[in-house]
């Protein structure tokens, strides 16, 4: 669906070629500051000089990035939702009846769900989630995770890339794991994840090994250890 390559002289990302297929559920893990958000921005065509991407993208940023001076209704209208579809879209993310609220009247979790509704409004072929569970209490995080899983089940052809720190999130959402590490950041792959506790522990061990390997490589190459 999307073949993607980073340019050779990128300051943060080392040259890499990625292939994203329809229905891929990818979790992108790695230490903070390695360029996970940079990679998402690159995929979304947001870096300077990048052309507009050829496919429809929904991007859930770390902050909600709704227009604070427009109501949820108007925010959704601006990305092309018809007026009579706004309330059903809000209902999908559990915000039924909040159309006339301004984003800053909502809690963090609600604003994030409103932003998720905006992602879905564009019927994305590729959904980018940047730390969707950050700063939420465990209960809200679990709720949002269930909501995202439900949305993924309903749109089997949509590809998703989700940045997270939690191996458990990766296990719950993904069927592929990318691990970004080093400086400039390199990408390690891992396949096939499922939600079983043993599998999660196994994935955590494999990721740790990937991290160690990458750090050792970096040290050998004279780069700073990660």
């Amino acid at each position: 669906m999307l073949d993607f390559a980073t340019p050779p002289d990128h300051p943060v990302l080392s040259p890499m070629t990625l292939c994203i297929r329809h229905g891929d559920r990818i979790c992108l893990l790695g230490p903070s500051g390695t360029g996970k958000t940079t990679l998402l921005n690159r995929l979304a065509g947001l870096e300077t000089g990048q052309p507009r991407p050829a496919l429809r993208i929904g991007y859930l940023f770390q902050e909600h990035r709704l227009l604070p001076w427009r109501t949820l209704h108007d925010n959704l209208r601006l990305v092309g939702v018809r007026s009579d579809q706004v309330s059903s879209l809000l209902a999908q993310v559990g915000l039924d009846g909040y159309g006339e609220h301004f984003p800053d009247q909502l809690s963090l979790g609600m604003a994030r769900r409103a932003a998720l509704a905006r992602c879905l409004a564009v019927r994305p072929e590729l959904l980018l989630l940047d730390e969707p569970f950050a700063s939420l209490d465990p209960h809200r995080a679990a709720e949002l995770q269930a909501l995202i899983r439900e949305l993924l089940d309903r749109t089997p052809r949509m590809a998703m890339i989700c940045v997270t720190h939690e191996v458990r999130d990766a296990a719950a959402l993904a069927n592929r794991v990318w691990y970004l590490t080093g400086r400039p950041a390199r990408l390690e792959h891992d396949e096939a994840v499922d939600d079983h506790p043993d599998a999660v522990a196994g994935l955590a061990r494999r990721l740790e090994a990937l991290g160690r390997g990458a750090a050792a490589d970096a040290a050998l190459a004279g780069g700073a250890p990660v």
Partner: protein
Amino acid sequence: MKASPLAYWVVLPLLVVFWWLMAWQLDTSLLPSPLAVLHTLQHEAASGELQRHLAITLQRVAISFTLAMALGALVGIAMGRLPLVNALLDPLLVLLLNLPALVLIILLYVWFGLVEAAAILAVVINKIPNVAVTLREGARSLDPRLEQMARVYAFSPGQRLLHVWVPQLFPYLMAATRGGLALIWKIVLVVELLGRSDGVGFQLHLAFQVFDVAGLLAYSLAFIAIVQLIELVILQPLERRASRWRRSGAQHA
């Protein structure tokens, strides 16, 4: 912070009382009493002269304000967003900011004659740099995160301007408007005094020639009242409406 309205109700009457006492003590036509000024005001209004000159001056203020805001905002935003434009225009901006308004007015009258276009142009050129500086600041403070959002969701240029930029620039536009009105109407009076044969500035000129202080104060007060009315009736309601989302507060936090 905005001063409490109570202060106005205390300080302004005190000022009037002080003025009245002074006028009464000095007993000279060079400082007429408030009542005498009011009388002149009434007389001018009855003859229709006051309205005529106020209307002409207001029209000049409106035209030059609109032009200065539009051009100044355009230049300022371009300078804030495009480093090349900023590099090219910045020296010009510094020059114009430091050029006395009077010099510009005289030059334009000398070059183009005592015509309406020269008068308006002088006011506009005087005001553009202030608007541009304010809006340049605003354009620089535009949130890059919302720019990214607008790009991902493919906002049209019009949508970006209306829904992403204007709300962020609104406080700067208001600041430029306030400063603009205050500055422009003063410059308009000077322009009228130097080279027009109607308007409040021209009337002040006549009053000056015969030392008619009552007429001077009458016209000034009438114009100050109108500028305050613009603030109360147009600017403040506009600001309240536009900052609705800000005051709504976090209900579910």
